[in-house]
């Protein structure tokens, strides 16, 4: 009896271990359960969210500099071609009273913020840079966001890359539309001419190669969010 139990148990443990160990995506039926957990986690994360919780980096902390990873989804590095597409403009629209269409000069004339913060990648690494740009809350004020705006979609010219955010994270004081990095103009590897950067969201939420900011009453997914990564992606 004991021996049998022992053998049965060992066999089932080994089977269970083997099942768990295989490099698999898991059963299809788990998906709805995982989605439920993601929604509940988002609820908790939104409840935890404070716009005065800041990412603070020591003033003497080292910057990542050249080792700050460059990343885009297009086959080659997206560069705005003025000859082809005309002057780059950042459109701010959707649920706003006065839609904006800003050239880089217009953007740089607005009140700017420079901050040294961490960049949290979903992969687990972090990198540090000093970003210069306009606070999203500043742009929202300038455009006169209406009360029905609950979400913001950040769109780009990096193929169809975009990511939508909850409005609270977008209006966090550390969320910038950045055009400068480490005291220089943003390079094409980091999203030139302008990109979203915030330590309150994971890297993939921070759309680079920005073209449009659309305030919305409903969320509109995102490039990686539609492919399985969590939509909220808060840090």
């Amino acid at each position, binding site marked *: 009896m004991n*021996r049998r139990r022992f053998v049965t148990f060992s066999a089932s443990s080994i089977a269970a271990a083997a099942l768990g160990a295989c*490099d698999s*995506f*898991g059963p299809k039926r788990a998906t709805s359960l995982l989605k439920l957990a993601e929604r509940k986690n988002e609820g908790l994360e939104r409840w*935890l969210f404070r716009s005065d919780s800041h*990412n603070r980096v020591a003033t003497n902390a080292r910057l990542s500099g050249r080792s700050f990873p460059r990343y885009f989804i297009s086959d080659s590095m997206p560069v705005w071609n003025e000859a082809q597409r005309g002057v780059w403009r950042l459109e701010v629209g959707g649920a706003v009273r006065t839609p904006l269409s800003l050239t880089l000069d217009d953007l740089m004339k607005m009140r700017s913020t420079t901050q040294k913060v961490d960049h949290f990648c*979903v*992969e*687990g690494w972090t990198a540090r840079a000093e970003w210069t740009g306009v606070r999203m809350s500043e742009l929202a004020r300038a455009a006169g966001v209406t009360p029905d705006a609950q979400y913001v979609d950040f769109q780009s010219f990096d193929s169809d890359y975009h990511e939508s955010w909850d409005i609270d994270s977008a209006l966090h004081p550390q969320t910038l539309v950045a055009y400068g990095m480490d005291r220089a103009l943003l390079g094409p590897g980091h999203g030139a001419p302008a990109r979203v950067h915030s330590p309150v969201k994971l890297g993939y939420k921070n759309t680079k190669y920005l073209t449009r900011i659309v305030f919305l009453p409903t969320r509109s997914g995102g490039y990686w969010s539609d492919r399985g990564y*969590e939509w909220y992606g808060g840090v």
Partner: protein
Amino acid sequence: MTHWVNFVALGLMITTGLRIFNAFPAFARKGESFCCYPFAGTPIPDVLTFGGWLAGARNYHFAAMWLLFVNGLVYVTFIYLHGEWRDLVPRRGDVRDSWEMLKFYLFARRDHPHQGKHNALQKAAYFAMPIFGALAVVTGVAIWKPVQLAPLTNLLGGYVWARYWHFVVMLCLVLLTVVHVIMVFTVDPYSIRSMITGGYNDAKSPEARNARPFFWRRPSATIATSDGGFDR
């Protein structure tokens, strides 16, 4: 029993955690190096991972964490309400008793030291288990919300270190589990029944049978087997 829920929860957390780790198998910030992990850049073998890709593993990790968390709460509540925590908290004399148990396991002592429900080494392990479980949750939360819960992350030395502690706690849990499983099979296979039903036959306890791992390696162990304890 919370025991088997824990088995599933920890199994999921560890395999998906290793998958997440593989996305960036090092602890340093980009452009920096980290002092305390000799295998930086070495990924974990795929057979030990679960979730398929980073997003899948993260989704499982952030779902199964609730299983682990709730199960831990149920376990702690249960042992508190039933007074069974008294069998686990360290007491004066446990250090001496642990030393005696160690001597027994290392064949420096012939007979099994007298014990209560658990021996002193077991007590230490079972007491440490939920503490490491709690530490796994705390360090995990610290790397989940390093900005919103920045004070917690800073307490652990910042994001990079918190990630490291989370990994180390996982290793401690794995180590405790491996030793635990080895001891169950080599010393007290009769307890497997009690892990499922809760009942336990004291006449077959390791103390009654004078059981220890590798007992067959030493002639002195014939005392144990002549009691008819083991049926191997």
